[in-house]
């Protein structure tokens, strides 16, 4: 792209933003999206709805909303609006592939993905184009305990404000090819239990004795034992799932499964323990069997909370939405599929107070689509993140034409 075209694009975006804003400064904008079919996720879809956005938050949503006087109204009649998509398991922004895994060191729950986060990669932009506004990006699956993930928005001026959660979600991985995997995790949780006991004894005592030595790894695991952090485990086979459920029974930590292509085989056991599953129906790169795609419906029927994931770069973040579409193709109800890419992942990442649905007070992360949200043919028209225009298809197409 020539420099001039770049400049033209940037200035167009600026003009657009200036059009959107009524007062000076982008964050202080109040504007209205009017006429679309809005999937709030918090309730049934609202036809011909109005969304009022104020200071990057949703101020009101509904059919009979009084529009403040003098604000800019964007007509989106005939379009569909869904909340910004949330991908609960991604490796986007990892510096280079080998920055993901402290391999072969097996235990590193103290590692933090944020320290390897690469904000300069164009992947962030691509994710926005696909309507993905929040991701949980974390360490790889090379270690038994890989480390802590970061929950971050894909767009925004100020990096500090983009980060929803700096470190959380202890990533673990079981590959089922080695007898040592479960015992390694088991013995470390036992150690962490001892560590936690020592600290609790110190905290409840008179504190005259010196405190027990601080161990960053055990500290992270102790958080999981206390219920402050979630344990997320990369898992494949049904027997491994059963082993991990037994660990959960023993230690009582909060557990979420990632990938879990065989989770449907033990769906009832998972549902009984309220363990959500983060699955990926379009594992094109891994060539998954039909049984997995049908298995998602089995899990849903058993009452398991579901979320989709892209596992970027395994499947591109940009096409995250198609995961939900594929689940619909195999029988998942549309509402459940939408929840699996919005509010469910938000709740599982514990950021549902800010994102995941279109409700008053939540961040104005919205995706405007030109047609039914789940259709593969439907393009993303516009993406708003914190009330700021992050993507506009017409500008993009204009650029593409120029380039041709």
């Amino acid at each position, binding site marked *: 792209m020539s420099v001039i075209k770049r400049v033209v694009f940037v200035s167009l975006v600026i003009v657009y933003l200036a059009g959107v804003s009524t007062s000076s400064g982008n964050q202080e904008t109040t504007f209205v999206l009017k006429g679309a079919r809005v999937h709030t996720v918090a309730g049934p879809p609202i036809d011909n709805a109005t969304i009022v956005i104020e200071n990057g938050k949703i101020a009101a949503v509904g059919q009979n909303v009084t529009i403040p006087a003098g604000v800019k109204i964007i007509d989106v009649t005939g379009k569909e609006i869904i909340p910004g998509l949330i991908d609960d398991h991604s490796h986007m922004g990892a*510096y280079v592939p080998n920055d993901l895994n402290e*391999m072969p060191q097996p235990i590193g729950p103290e590692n933090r993905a944020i320290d390897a986060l*690469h904000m300069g990669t164009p992947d962030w932009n691509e994710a926005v184009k696909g309507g993905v506004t929040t991701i949980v990006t974390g360490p790889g699956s090379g270690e038994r305990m890989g*480390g802590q993930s970061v929950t971050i928005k894909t767009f925004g001026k100020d990096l500090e404000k983009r980060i929803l959660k700096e470190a959380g979600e202890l990533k673990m991985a079981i590959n089922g090819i080695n007898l040592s995997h479960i015992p390694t995790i088991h013995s470390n949780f036992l150690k962490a239990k001892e560590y936690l006991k020592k600290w609790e004894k110190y905290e409840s005592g008179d504190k005259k004795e010196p405190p027990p030595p601080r161990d*960053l790894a055990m500290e992270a695991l102790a958080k999981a034992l206390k219920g402050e952090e979630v344990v997320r485990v990369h898992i494949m086979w049904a027997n491994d799932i059963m082993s991990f459920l037994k660990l959960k029974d023993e230690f009582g930590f909060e557990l979420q499964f990632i990938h879990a292509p065989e989770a449907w085989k033990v769906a009832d056991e998972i549902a009984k323990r309220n363990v959500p599953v983060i699955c990926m129906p379009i594992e094109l790169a891994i060539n998954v069997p039909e049984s997995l795609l049908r298995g998602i419906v089995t899990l849903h029927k058993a009452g398991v909370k579901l979320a989709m994931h892209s596992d970027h770069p395994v499947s591109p973040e940009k096409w995250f939405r198609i995961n939900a579409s594929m689940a619909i193709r195999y029988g998942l109800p549309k509402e459940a599929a939408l929840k699996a890419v919005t509010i469910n992942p938000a709740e599982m990442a514990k950021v549902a107070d800010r994102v995941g649905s279109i409700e008053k007070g939540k961040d104005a992360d919205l995706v405007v689509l030109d047609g039914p949200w789940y259709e593969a043919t439907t393009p993303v028209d516009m993406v708003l993140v914190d009330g700021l225009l992050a993507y506009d298809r017409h500008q993009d197409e204009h650029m593409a034409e120029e380039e041709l």
Partner: protein
Amino acid sequence: MFRRRQFTRQLQAVGWVLPAVLSVAALLLALPILQAQDKPVIAIQGGTVLTMAGDAIEGGTVVLWQGKIAAVGKQVSIPDGAQIIDATGKYVMPGIVDAMTYYGIRPFALNDRAKPVTPENKVILAYYPFGKRMHGEKGIVKDQEILSGGVTTVYIAPGDQQVIGGQGAVVKTYGADYQAFTLREPAAIDMCIGDPPKQEPRYIGAKPPLTRMGIATLLRKALVGAQQYGQKLKDYDQKTDEEKEKASPPPRNLGMEAMIKLLNKDIPARIESDFVDDIRTAIRICDEFDIDLVIDSGLGAYKVKDILAEKKIPVVLGPPIHPFVQGGEVSMSPDLYREMDDYSAAKLLKAGVPVALASFGFSFGGFGYATSGRWLLLEAAYLTGFNVSDEEALKMITINAAQILGVDDRVGSLEKGKDADVIILDGYPLHIKTWVDQVFIDGENVYTRRGGAK
């Protein structure tokens, strides 16, 4: 010289009536002064003096006495018997301060690669000021290569192949003995966040760090260790004498003793990082443990200039003509091109970030990628083409560098009371045809360009 005059006046006041006892005492008192006269009084006259602490002085005089600057200005009385150096038409400025070098250390002795964290290592122990090994003369050498660039003070550091390399030092490029040339030791603890400390990934036997996450974890662990060691020392100190007799003091740990200096903010952490994301990691960790930070190399630092300015974190930039970056040349890690910006220094300065320019250079026969500090003036000159004013460019290699190194009470500008580290140039310092004619360190002439000064 001035003190001697006063002393004479006192003698006159007392008169010659007093017995010989007093004169013997006076002789004894005068002894140190007589000894100090080993270094002659030097007055550099007639040149344009760039003090780095105010406006340039046309036709000014700088008086060097007892290794210190005794006077700077236009109307300065020159003491009797002073050696006069005519600098008419020339420029006089403080010696160049190179805020980051591997000077005087053999390249393969820069890192203890077997271990990723070695805060106990001291670079001053590897520093070799005796010139060519197995050859040469007795005593400390006046290295003509680095002196020819007017460099009088350098920061010497361990290499970047470890997460925590060890303790750096500020030394002069010449001194009569170790004590004389050591300005500050330790001056900082050198660390690196980025690709250099990462080990080769292997399935069996690879040790951390293999990733950026691993680097951050090792840093955190070292700092947590230091916090705990410090607490143990404190606990022991608070005990009564009786209790102390019963309990044994915590065993000494050289590395942790050094790290405690960081936590006490006696010295800063100098973290070499080029990618802006790594710089953010450095800031995040230093915030977490409340320690002072200096960013080294900092190719992408201008992207977080406002954060750096707000937190008053200085940046020591690498040379722009031949950029020193992690792992050597930029072309060796092409990803770094996206962080490069010729206007980087100007942007940082405008935002209010303290900036120094350093060579990251080797000398004494090292085969470095980087340029020698010898050309630091030219590197600064190059920056003036990119929105840096002449004054700022010169300050980046003198007073700014001295401030960042914490030695600005001794060097970095021509002010009364500071060390007499002065250079005379035969033209405007930032011009390509300008040569350093003479270099004085602690008032002693250590370099004279052949065919230069007359």
